[in-house]
């Protein structure tokens, strides 16, 4: 359950910037190839925010889809999973998006 550690780092990243200001909502960017489950983060969020300035804050997710570019044919396409395979048969695929794992912004109360 690495989501617990990662969700704790949400609290750290936010309070480092906002101090003790009450936070009404937190927007995270969790790409669909990031290897982190938003539902599990939401579950952990209530636990790790108890007694902090994020207590009771709404957690929102942007979930960018995976996108890859084939280094052989140059085509860009949606990556539904981590299997790096282009329709042209090449497995030499660069992941362009989908691995994001960041706190984007917060709204203060």
């Amino acid at each position, binding site marked *: *359950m*690495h989501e617990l*550690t*990662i969700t704790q*780092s*949400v609290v*750290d*990243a*936010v309070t*480092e*910037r*906002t*101090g003790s*200001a009450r936070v*009404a909502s937190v927007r*995270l960017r969790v790409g669909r190839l990031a*290897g*982190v489950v938003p539902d599990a983060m939401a579950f952990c969020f209530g636990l790790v925010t108890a007694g902090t300035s994020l207590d009771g804050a709404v957690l929102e997710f942007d979930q960018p889809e995976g996108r890859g570019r084939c280094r052989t044919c140059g085509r860009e396409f949606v990556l539904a*999973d*981590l*299997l*790096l*395979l282009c329709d042209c048969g090449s*497995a*030499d695929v660069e992941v362009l998006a989908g691995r994001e*794992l*960041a*706190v*984007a*912004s*917060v*709204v*203060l*109360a």
Partner: protein
Amino acid sequence: MCGTCGCGESDVRVEGLADGHRHGVSTEHGHPPVHEPRSRTVDIETALLAKNDHLAGHNRSWLAERGIVALNLMSSPGAGKTSLLERTLKGARVGREISVIEGDQETTFDAQRIRDAGARAIQINTGSGCHLDATMIERGLRALDPKPDSLVFLENVGNLVCPALFDLGERAKVVIISVTEGDDKPLKYPHMFAAADLVVVNKTDLLPYVDFDVDRCARDARRLKPTLTVLPLSVRDGSGLGAWYDWLNAL
């Protein structure tokens, strides 16, 4: 002064939160909250693994300054991480001195096994934690104090999921899979295999008794990481260990 409404109070911003005010939350301020979302939103834009990655960078520099190579060893529980290390120590065919940081939720069993095999080892118990992180390794390296130009194995907590995301400062990630686990593991745990630099397929002495297709496993793993090296071996009967030693000695 508030840059939006000119009301004489400073706007809420990242710097100077101490004098910030809250637009529209209460009526004390007196004007309608038409510009409220803009004034209350604070951009953070911080990667959630930034701290771990930063500390891992420190570990990597610390190791590089001493010419030490660290390998992050990951697998599900029971795939043979500690057994491979014991065999590697007894085989004495690696050119560098070896020491080990053992990660487990509880017990010092594995560190003791490594010491019994003749190498220095320290144990990290993660308690409820499911993976090692860069902070633990920083502390572990200080405690272990590996010799310059040596090889340090970082044996992660047995888990094919969580350790994949945490950089420890290692030179390479080695994933061990045993043939009794099934050849579908790369596709079932894609993040781990996509992160790996080397996949060791252990317990090949049991291949006659299980339905494990080594070629399928290797092919699927390379669909996740095309540059992956796959080494089938048996810690028990020693077959394939030569390639493992060659890989270690080429680091």
